[in-house]
């Protein structure tokens, strides 16, 4: 025995003999070959056996071919023939049953299946370990279990197999994209419903075109003279796919336009923002979301130009410092009509708000969202902006109700929009102030108040001189007590009577109502409000959110659909008493607590969810 290999040594230490393994493998291989030879009905002559491949003669064969007398030999020959024929028949039957045979058969006239079976048998692939010529390139290679067969049934060498695998992979990928599968389709459908982009029937041609365009945006050099509304749609689509970068931004910068909307500026640098001001000299309205690189230097550039922005929407630009903001307001504030600032944690503070009244004589819309710095003093300063029509605050600091009461007494009279998001501590005095001062409100949002009571809401809506509201969002104005969640002795939050009063006040005009999580509105109140009665029709109602209102039942949902003829979407997440409702055609009910989660119904629903 020569020197042992490391592997053999290692195996030996684990009581495994490499030699034994080799012998076993050889024996197996030989046995397999013999079987194959038999099946192939090769003559049992030793000579012919020896001529096949490299197989050694087996004991069984050599025994058979031992010299005998002529008669015995003849008898043995017929017996052998018989046996061989039987064996062949068996093998043919076996092959006929195999998948490969069935596949081949499909293309061929089934006239002589036996011939085909024989043909297949004759080409039985060599076993792993043997040498074979590659069908494709002709090189000699060792057959392994991973060798693939080529188009004509022969085996392929390693490199050729790899090529084939690559081709297959691309083919598979392509076909996958086309179908998406039943699950993928359904998932997409549900996702569309939740996005509110669902509609029955085909997509509009515009949508189809815009989708195609956004997929191939790298081919576009210029959007030509498309109308601004379409350009905006393309911008939205691109941002959705996060495709807006320095290059694609140029498509939207037309020197003649006065409006630029960057829905996703995450990939844009400061220079790109500066480029906006360079190429669009007549810019009036600018919207930037995720504008992280909208920094001081961009502000500096903006101030150095003759651009008078009327509308600025900045989202996530928290690198603009407080000093720059002030400077901006002092230089450019006079033209500003609308300013919306989101996620600018540090630098938009009380001091800045105090500057507005003096610097922005025509500001009508102010929105400050996700802000950690502004406190009561800042909000009080907003009261000095007499031109304000739309006010929206989403502050992290919890302010006392008096701040809001004071604010409303100053500017409440002309306010059209009042949006107070997450005002934990705001109480009934705020509602009373709204009742007393507001006369032009169209949109009202007060969310997550723990203090306001049902009686307060009743006082607000009953006999209110304000015309009907169009948009109301009172979500999560409810009592929260983890110890006794069901009881609400003080009537905290929007409850039955407040809800009744609201619906009475704005019955004709209300288009969008959100009472998400107002848990103490009773079933009786819902039934009252959505009674089957000609006086209780809410013609304008298009979207209604009543999720987590525990008392909502199938009956209530049915009544809602009856009394809101124009309702498109109804949300009922967490309404556990909604079980099985018939949804009218074209309406959407979202969030039914069952496995399907949402129901859409068409009357002739023959290609609904149930096929596939």
């Amino acid at each position, binding site marked *: 025995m020569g020197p042992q290999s490391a592997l053999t040594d290692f195996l030996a230490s684990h009581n495994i003999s490499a030699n034994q393994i080799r012998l076993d493998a050889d024996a197996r291989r030989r046995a397999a070959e013999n079987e194959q030879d038999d099946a192939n009905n090769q003559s049992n002559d030793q000579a012919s056996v020896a001529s096949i491949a490299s197989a050694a003669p087996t004991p069984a064969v050599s025994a058979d071919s031992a010299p005998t007398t002529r008669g015995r030999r003849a008898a043995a020959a017929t017996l052998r023939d018989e046996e061989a024929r039987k064996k062949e028949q068996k093998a043919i039957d076996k092959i006929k049953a195999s998948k490969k045979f069935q596949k081949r058969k499909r293309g061929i006239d089934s006239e002589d299946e036996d011939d085909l079976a024989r043909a297949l048998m004759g080409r039985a692939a060599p076993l792993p370990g043997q040498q074979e010529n590659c069908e494709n390139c002709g090189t000699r290679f060792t057959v392994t279990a991973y060798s693939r067969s080529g188009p004509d049934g022969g085996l392929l060498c390693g490199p050729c197999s790899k090529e084939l695998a690559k081709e297959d992979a691309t083919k598979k990928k392509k076909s996958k994209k086309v179908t998406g599968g039943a699950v993928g*389709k*359904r998932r997409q*459908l549900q996702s569309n419903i939740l996005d509110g982009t669902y*509609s*029955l*029937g*085909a*997509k*509009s*041609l*515009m*949508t*189809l*075109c*815009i*989708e*195609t*365009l956004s997929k*191939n945006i790298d*081919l*576009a050099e210029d*959007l*030509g003279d*498309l*109308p601004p509304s*379409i350009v905006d749609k393309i911008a939205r689509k691109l941002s959705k796919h996060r495709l807006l970068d320095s290059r694609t931004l140029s498509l939207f910068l037309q020197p003649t336009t006065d409006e630029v909307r960057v829905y996703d500026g995450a990939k844009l640098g400061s220079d790109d923002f500066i480029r906006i001001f360079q190429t669009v000299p007549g810019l009036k309205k600018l919207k930037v979301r995720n504008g992280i690189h909208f920094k001081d230097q961009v502000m500096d550039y903006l101030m150095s130009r003759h651009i008078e922005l009327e509308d600025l929407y900045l989202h996530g630009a928290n690198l603009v410092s407080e000093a720059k903001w002030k400077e901006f307001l002092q230089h450019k504030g006079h033209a500003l009509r609308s300013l919306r600032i989101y996620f600018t944690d540090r630098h938009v503070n009380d001091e800045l708000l105090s500057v507005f009244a003096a610097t922005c004589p025509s500001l009508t819309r102010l929105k400050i969202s996700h802000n950690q710095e502004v406190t009561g003093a800042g909000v009080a300063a907003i009261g000095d902006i007499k031109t304000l029509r739309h006010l929206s605050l989403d502050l992290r600091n919890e302010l006392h109700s008096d701040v809001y009461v004071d604010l409303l007494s100053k500017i409440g009279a002309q306010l059209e929009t009042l949006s107070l998001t997450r005002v934990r501590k705001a109480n009934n005095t705020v509602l009373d102030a709204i009742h007393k001062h507001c006369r032009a409100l169209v949109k009202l949002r007060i969310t997550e108040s723990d203090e306001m009571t049902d009686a307060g809401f009743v006082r607000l809506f009953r006999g209110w001189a304000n015309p009907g509201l169009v948009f109301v969002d009172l979500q999560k104005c409810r009592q929260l007590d983890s110890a006794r969640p069901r009881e609400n002795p003080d009537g905290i939050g929007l409850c039955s009577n407040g809800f009744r009063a609201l619906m009475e006040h704005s019955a004709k005009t209300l288009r969008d109502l959100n009472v998400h999580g107002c848990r103490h509105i009773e079933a009786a109140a819902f039934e009252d409000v959505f009674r089957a009665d000609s006086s209780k029709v809410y013609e304008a109602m298009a979207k209604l959110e009543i999720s987590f209102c525990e008392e909502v039942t199938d009956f209530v949902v049915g009544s809602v659909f009856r009394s809101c003829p124009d309702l498109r979407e109804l949300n009922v997440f967490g309404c556990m008493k909604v079980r099985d409702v018939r949804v009218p055609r*074209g309406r959407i009910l979202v969030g039914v607590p069952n496995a399907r989660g949402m129901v*859409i119904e*068409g009357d*002739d629903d023959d*290609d*609904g*969810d149930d096929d596939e």
Partner: protein
Amino acid sequence: MADSKYITLVSDGGFEFVVLREAALVSPTIKGMLRSQFSEAQTGRCEFPEINATVLEKVVEYFYYWYRNRDKEDVPDMDIPVEMCLELLMAADYFNLDAKPALRNMA
């Protein structure tokens, strides 16, 4: 002339497309043209000299695609050739084939 089931759309260069009226009505523009007081309503023939034939053909294809799928959920997207995407977009704007081919128009 009583309303025929079909109308004729004529593109730049005089190519004519005979289209099922109901399918073509997805476009508010065509719907407007076919209102009674216009000559198009009498002849059932709408001329679009500023739209080229290949684009109009694709638009007509869309009319039928929409018509076939108008009641279906989960409709496979129609294939839009990339090279005519922008032109088609202009045409879509012209024909007012904007978002949501209104449900209520069908009813």
